[in-house]
């Protein structure tokens, strides 16, 4: 049922003191869709995202996931329901190897690994766990770097690792916060290809501040400006909307 809404917000708002960072946003994304939110820096995109994922508690309004109100559900419980995110500043663990970064996300499979010995300390290096981690790394094409320290990866590779970690959580909806930020042109092409290949497998919502990067990737586009959602529609429609062009490019974002 592709037309079933998976994530919806109603009147979602958050204020920091007097400042309304996000103001009465109504937003909806259907199961299986690939949608983008664009807007200049400071428009409230990331703040909006942080309320979707549970890092911030809204001051008003509500978030619904598959019809259930999850406004006050903690971050880790939302992940268990299938809402997984990546961060604008790539968030991986530099103090672990690339392969070991996959261990926290695949930890919930621990019961499936054959070993039932009490106080068995070698599980992180057991063949089952290593194989499981490597499989996920292979999906983003960085399995060859598994034994290296994560700190030695390029920013683009770290982004891929972060995406692999997110994928291993088997999301129903993947929320990507500016996945292209800080990447070189070659890396952007790479990561766009990666995200493109995920379309249709599950719902994808991503934030970006340059329209041109994602206009061919997403099926629906929403525009945020000064904490409000000012337009939603098909990418071409949005790009050619005179009012949006005035606000958006007038704001000097591109």
């Amino acid at each position, binding site marked *: 049922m592709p037309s079933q809404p998976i994530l919806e917000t109603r009147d979602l708002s958050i204020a920091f003191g007097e400042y309304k960072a996000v103001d009465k946003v109504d937003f909806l994304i259907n199961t299986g869709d690939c949608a983008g939110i664009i807007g200049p820096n400071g428009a409230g995109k990331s703040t909006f995202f942080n309320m979707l*994922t549970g*890092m911030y508690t809204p001051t008003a309004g509500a978030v619904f996931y598959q019809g259930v109100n999850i406004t006050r559900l*903690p*971050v*880790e419980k939302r*992940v*268990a329901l299938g809402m*997984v*995110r990546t*961060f604008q500043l790539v*968030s*991986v*663990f*530099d*103090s*672990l190897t690339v392969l*070991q*970064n996959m*261990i*926290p*996300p695949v*930890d*919930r499979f*621990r019961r499936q690994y054959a070993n039932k010995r009490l106080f*068995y*300390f*070698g*599980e*992180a*290096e057991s063949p089952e*766990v290593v194989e499981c981690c490597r499989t996920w790394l292979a999906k983003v094409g960085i399995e060859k770097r598994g034994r290296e320290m994560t700190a030695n990866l390029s920013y683009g590779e770290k982004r891929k690792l972060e995406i692999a*970690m997110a994928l291993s*959580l088997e999301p129903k909806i993947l929320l990507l916060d500016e996945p292209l930020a800080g990447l070189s042109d070659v890396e952007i092409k790479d990561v766009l290809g990666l995200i493109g290949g995920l379309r249709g497998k599950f719902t994808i919502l991503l934030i970006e501040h340059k329209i041109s990067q994602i206009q061919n990737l997403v099926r629906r586009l929403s525009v945020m400006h000064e904490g409000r959602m000012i337009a939603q529609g098909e990418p071409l429609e949005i790009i050619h909307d005179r009012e949006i062009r005035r606000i958006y490019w007038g704001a000097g974002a591109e």
Partner: protein
Amino acid sequence: MISVIAYGLTLGGILYIISIGFSFTFGTMKIVNYAHALIFTIGGYILYATLPRIGFYPAAVLAATLGVIPIAFIIERFVIRNLYGESVDLTIIATYAVFLIGLDVLKWIWGSNPLQMSDPINKTFTFLGTELPVYRMAVIVIALALAILIEIFLQRSMAGKIVIAGLEDKETVRGLGISVQRYFTMVFIIGSALAALGGVLYAPITVVEPYMGFQILMLSFAVVIVGGLGNWRGTFVAAFFLGMVMSVTGRWWGPASEVAVFAILAVSLLIHPIDI
């Protein structure tokens, strides 16, 4: 000279056993836990109280180490857990309050007079012409064994990897659907049991008295900062280094030994200022 080095290593071992839990609480939860000093002291008192009844020293050590677990659990559940994300000064005030309350309970039960304990092994051996107490060497061996166990746990178990990840960035760990709270509670309880073990091992070297934990906590604080916040290997190195510094300076002039530790702490802060 040999006896100075041996004493330094013994002190280092005790400092390590106490500091490791303090370091993890600081590194993972950003909480300066003064109640750690209380647990350390309680460890010493439980040993004092149980040894005459049990009669077998290792069993009394185990009783003291495990006996603090319910106390640590209560402190974690009702105090520490409410301090997540609070400012460091508030965590100090709250845990210091726990420390003071516990201190009064200890004084109420056992009084404030220092209680002497005898060397449980009471044998010496000769090494390069110097006579050394076997007990102090045993303390060093226990500290090294614990360091190896902790290293194996962190490096080879999945829970260990999650703890390391949590030390680096706990928000990202939560974002991976993991309830970090559970792991932090586990780390806190183990760290507290080790603090009690530290008190138990230190008791025969000094005396059991209500304030024994306070002085050692200040030293432990220095160890954790010199070693790097949440850096368990750094804590190990710093503990033995500062233990040695205390032993060597104490040899020349007793009162200088702690001053030397805090001088090193000050220099370390100048080189690597911490931001919490």
